[in-house]
């Protein structure tokens, strides 16, 4: 629990200012803690100029011998025979971090008949690639992928493991962290290192992007994070880069799994997927009828983007649930987000407000979506979109 040394406390209020949860406040010139609201984050302890605050913590998890863990790992993701863009993004970031930590970057590539991808990983920044190529890895199962990665990490002891915050990464990387009994920070949007103790500074959004937090895993190794696709720029591959490829044969005991994949279905989707798209055109209730959603598709195609949906558009059956953006759907932050016929309920806004440019088109000039829009157009999407499509086609033609 958080303790206040009332002798040292001057009632300056720095702690109150620093607290995210309004759990500490100054009363009668001394700091008072609301222990029920306090999450023991320790931010006020650092903020106190008098050193009057102390976190009293039970003897915790056994601290690891930190110095024996070395190197940065990037878990490569290969979907339908193609490396996921986030893998290349992570390699670029890892090179930067490896420079600061004076260490090496290793990619871990798991799958079946994927060996040819090792070169691509080296060209994009890996010094070394562990290739685990096995028929049992042809389809993804949490158990086998997780067991192999955890086993390899126990033997090789990397200091950092980074993976994409994709459906696959967010499903099996928690398994690995739990097996290794270490910390894992989900869905990071920023990574840095603190040179003095080699801590990985992991920044991530919470509360649907309304709060950002920087998190460390100071007493345990490896330091693990999943990283949101599309927040880092990949390097231009260098076909001259050299690296080492090491083949790993997984032990039989690691290959058993209790979940069987009966079928993998790739649904017909045009363009990039939502989390990787630069441009998203979202259709809301304002489209009125399913056939009008075609306008959103046409505009998305023109801009090289993809189509998203509000809850209302999914409930109406116009678009599939996988395209739903917002609190109970996907969180996105593309370069351009076009909210078309979207009123802007808070549940939708938390899923898209991090976008770079937001264009809102709505009949109702008072719709809350305009409060977060970079550019607002008041009008019927059924009138505005055909005009916009036509205008862009003309622009492209000239």
């Amino acid at each position, binding site marked *: 629990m958080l303790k206040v040394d009332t002798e040292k406390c001057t009632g300056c209020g720095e702690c109150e200012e620093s607290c995210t949860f309004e759990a500490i406040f100054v009363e009668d010139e001394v700091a008072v803690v609301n222990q029920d609201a306090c999450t023991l984050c320790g931010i006020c302890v650092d903020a106190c100029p008098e050193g009057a605050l102390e976190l009293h913590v*039970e003897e915790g998890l056994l601290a690891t011998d930190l110095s024996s863990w070395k190197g940065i790992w990037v878990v490569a993701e290969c979907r339908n025979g193609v490396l996921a863009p986030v893998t290349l993004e992570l390699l670029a970031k890892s090179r930067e971090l490896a420079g600061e930590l004076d260490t090496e970057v290793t990619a871990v590539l798991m799958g079946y008949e994927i060996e040819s991808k090792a070169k691509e990983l080296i060209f994009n920044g890996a010094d070394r690639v562990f290739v685990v190529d096995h028929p049992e890895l042809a389809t993804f199962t949490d158990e086998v992928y997780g067991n192999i990665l955890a086993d390899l990490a126990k033997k090789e002891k990397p200091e950092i493991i980074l993976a994409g915050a994709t459906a696959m990464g*967010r499903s099996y990387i928690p398994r690995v*962290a739990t097996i290794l009994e270490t910390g894992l920070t*989900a869905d990071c949007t920023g990574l840095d290192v603190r040179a003095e103790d080699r801590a990985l500074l992991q920044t991530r959004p*919470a509360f649907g992007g309304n709060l*950002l*937090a920087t998190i460390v895993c100071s007493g345990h190794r490896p330091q693990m994070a999943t990283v949101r696709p599309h927040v880092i720029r990949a390097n231009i591959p260098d076909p001259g880069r050299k690296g080492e490829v090491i083949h790993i044969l997984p032990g039989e005991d690691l290959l058993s799994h209790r979940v069987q994949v009966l079928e993998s279905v790739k649904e017909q989707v045009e363009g990039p997927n939502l989390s990787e798209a630069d441009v998203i055109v979202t259709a809301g209730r304002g489209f009125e009828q399913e056939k009008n959603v075609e306008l959103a598709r046409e505009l998305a195609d023109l801009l090289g983007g993809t189509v998203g949906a509000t809850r209302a558009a999914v409930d109406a059956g116009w678009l599939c649930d996988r395209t739903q953006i917002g609190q*109970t759907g996907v969180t996105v932050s593309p370069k351009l987000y076009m909210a078309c016929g979207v009123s802007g309920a808070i549940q939708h806004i938390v899923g898209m407000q991090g976008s770079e440019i937001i264009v809102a088109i709505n009949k109702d000039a008072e719709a809350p979506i305009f409060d977060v829009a970079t550019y607002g157009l008041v009008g019927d999407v059924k009138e505005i979109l055909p005009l916009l499509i036509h205008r862009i086609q003309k622009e492209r033609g000239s």
Partner: protein
Amino acid sequence: MNIVVCIKQVPDAKTVRYDTEKGTLVREGVGAIINPFDFHALEAGLRLKDAYGGEVTVLSMGPPQAGNALKEALSLGADKGILLSDRAFAGADTLATTYTLAKAIKKLGRVDLVLCGKQAIDGDTAQVGPGLAVRLGLPYVTCVNALSVLDDGKTMHLRRVNEDGYDMLELEIPALLTVLASLNTPRLPSLKGKMRARKAEIPLWDARELGAEPGMVGLAGSATQVVSTWVPTFEARREMLEGSAEEQVEALVSRFKEAGIL
């Protein structure tokens, strides 16, 4: 089928405000709700109970007021609720949370299925489900949006959604699933349910009751620590383009050109 549904009480996004000066949440006047995804986990549990019998137990870790979330779950038809609450649980990251939940589930005895929402809307980590499954030694499937039980009563077919489509999976219970909102439409509480919930006692299990190691729960059992938080400022925007539909479109096209989109 004995089913445990894990739920979390979270701040209601509709009532949360942010202090950009201080970089903090304004807690005052914030309502608390059951995490939206968890309603769907509960609904899935209740439907399985309706079809196959058994019991649905709802479990939550949180401060004493999280008992209200459990009562709400009872009003929807859950058979019993258990609150894991102890000062020592405060400051838990997902590693410490899964340890605590696993201790409680093991204490419950035979469990056929553990259901969780895909993620909580405050932390958004989606890590508790998979981590809990590992602690319990159970197979798990995340992001489920369709499920069925075969005639043998123990084989399940599940649809797991990913970026490009979906996988159809098969497993045998006992298992753990995390579910999407599209799995089902949650029921509303009945009057009878509400009455029952009002009268219900929610047992409170603390660290000692669970037999939890003090160094494994709460802040002490957490591998990660928060170093700073802040509220991102979304730059003052809101340029309303003016004129007729044609003029607004023309203005937008020129903004697109400036931004390099066209």
